[in-house]
């Protein structure tokens, strides 16, 4: 009987992921991969709900969601000796949460994607989102998404707030309501919103860029004066998984050079394997290279976890209505 590995993933570009990961891995391991897809919050909720009787082996999560999962005791510590490709990764990717709970398989910048034909003065700052010409034309990530809290954090910073005083950020975001069409729950929704002309500009993670370009609309990736924030996606092993051996093989596989190269070339995920080489024009569409990665202002998962619940409350009350 064939073995089955259940992987919880994002679902974005699933067809490309199937091409680059699912099918090659299935061929190699003579097993079957079953995907459970959804946004981070959804999937974390499911992991938590099934804590005592997990039905997922490997989960791919945003870094602070993985941290949340680790805090709730949902994760197994990784035996890194079973990951032969680990040493090819940039150092920050090897143990991003500490305690060997996770391995990062991609990292990405968060910035603003915008329509160059509609917005003639390029967007260069978070503050540009408040331009009157954008009335009813922007989408923000919902607070429960992975990008939600980092965007709040970045905006707060841009308007002079600090980690202990987030009032400037929330006040400004509340004032942004008139410009917001909707708050998105999936980065993937953005492609639709751009394609249907509902939205001209939106903060988004770099991983969705390929998807956005596919709409065929003239789009640019804003170079923000405040700099870009960086977030990693990590792979974790779910506690109680009954397919640990396969799970390690899978994690090792997705950080391998060949997979990381394939994913990068399809603009699915920016690579964290230092041996990956891509052409210059691909590189321009990705968060690529140690230099660029180093320039990102990393958002501290621990901080976000600490403030998230309060932010969700506040967001619901002051922003999302």
């Amino acid at each position, binding site marked *: 009987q064939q073995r*089955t590995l*259940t*992987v*919880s993933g994002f*679902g*974005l*570009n*699933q*067809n490309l992921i*199937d091409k680059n990961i699912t099918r090659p891995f299935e061929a190699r391991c003579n097993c079957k991969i*079953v*995907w*459970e*897809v*959804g946004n981070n919050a959804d999937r974390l909720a*499911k992991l938590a*709900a*099934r804590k005592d*009787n997990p*039905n*997922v082996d490997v989960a791919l999560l945003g870094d602070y969601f993985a941290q949340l999962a680790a805090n709730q005791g949902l994760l197994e510590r990784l035996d890194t000796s079973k990951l032969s490709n680990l040493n090819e990764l940039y150092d920050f990717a090897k143990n991003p949460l500490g305690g060997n709970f996770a391995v990062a398989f991609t990292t990405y910048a968060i910035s603003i994607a915008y329509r160059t034909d509609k917005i003639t003065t390029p967007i260069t700052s978070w503050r540009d989102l408040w331009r009157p010409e954008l009335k009813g034309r922007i989408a923000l990530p919902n607070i429960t998404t992975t990008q939600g809290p980092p965007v709040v954090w970045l905006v707060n910073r841009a308007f002079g707030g600090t980690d202990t005083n987030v009032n400037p950020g929330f006040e400004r975001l509340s004032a942004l309501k008139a410009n917001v069409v909707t708050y998105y*729950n*999936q980065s*993937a*929704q953005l*492609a*639709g*919103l751009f*394609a*249907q002309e509902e939205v001209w500009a939106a903060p988004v993670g770099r991983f969705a860029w390929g998807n956005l370009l*596919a*709409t*065929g609309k003239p789009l640019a990736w804003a170079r923000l004066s405040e700099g870009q924030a960086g977030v990693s996606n990590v792979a974790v092993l779910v506690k109680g998984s009954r397919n640990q051996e396969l799970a390690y093989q899978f994690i090792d596989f997705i950080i391998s050079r060949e997979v990381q190269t394939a994913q990068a070339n399809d603009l699915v995920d920016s690579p964290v394997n230092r041996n990956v080489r891509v052409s210059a024009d691909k590189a321009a569409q990705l968060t690529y290279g140690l230099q660029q990665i180093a320039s990102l202002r990393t958002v501290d998962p621990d901080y976000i976890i600490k403030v998230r619940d309060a932010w969700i409350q506040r967001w619901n009350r002051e922003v999302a209505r």
Partner: protein
Amino acid sequence: MRESRFPIVMLGLALLFLVGPFVVVFISAFSGDRTLAFPPSSFSLQWFAKVLTVEAFQASFVTSLWLGVLSTLLALLMGIPVAYALARYQVPGAEVIRVILTSPLILPALMVGLALLRYFVLIGNNSISIGLLIGHTALLLPYAVRVVSASLANLPRDIEDAAMSLGANRLQTFFRVVLPNIRGGVAAASVLAFITSFNQVPVSLFLTGPGVSTLPIQMLLYMEYTYDPTIAALSTLLILFSILFVLLTERLLGISKYV
């Protein structure tokens, strides 16, 4: 005898509102563009081809099909005896029984899905597939009871008495006389139940897991991830499927009586 045109105009508007959007989707489904826009700038069949290749759709279509068939069967197996007992015996507390059996219709379906997930799947530690089957069966049971009851009400009791006077016992009477005469109602109930299950979202929403998902849920997911006309093509297929069903069932069974 000049009659006011107002009612006809309202009917026309109502129908336009109900069915008009389908036309837009039909046309979008044949788009040759990469993303959804209306009207499309060119036409092709590519999105229909795509529907057939998306694995999630294939798998969930099969799941939905099985789920629909099994839950319909279960609902009928339990519902027909209920309809018969309520129609033919003076059961004490018949009203209470009716309320209990129609409660799945009254309760918000999301609540049902949640309750099953929480207590049946998570706490009771049963598989999601079974939970899904139970949720759907419970939801279809009222339809089965109602539609079969309606057709039993049209079946004169006399013919059962006649069968018994001719020497048939109760079982023989049921299988030789009652069942053949309510098969229209049973067929209508099956169709209605199957369609209801096949289109169900709220109950299924909570009762999906890795590898277990229904077509509507996959469509929802897909729509969150992709904004191309694939869903338009799939919707078109589903609408055509519905038209076929409506034509067939309205002609054969007059299903509008039971909706």
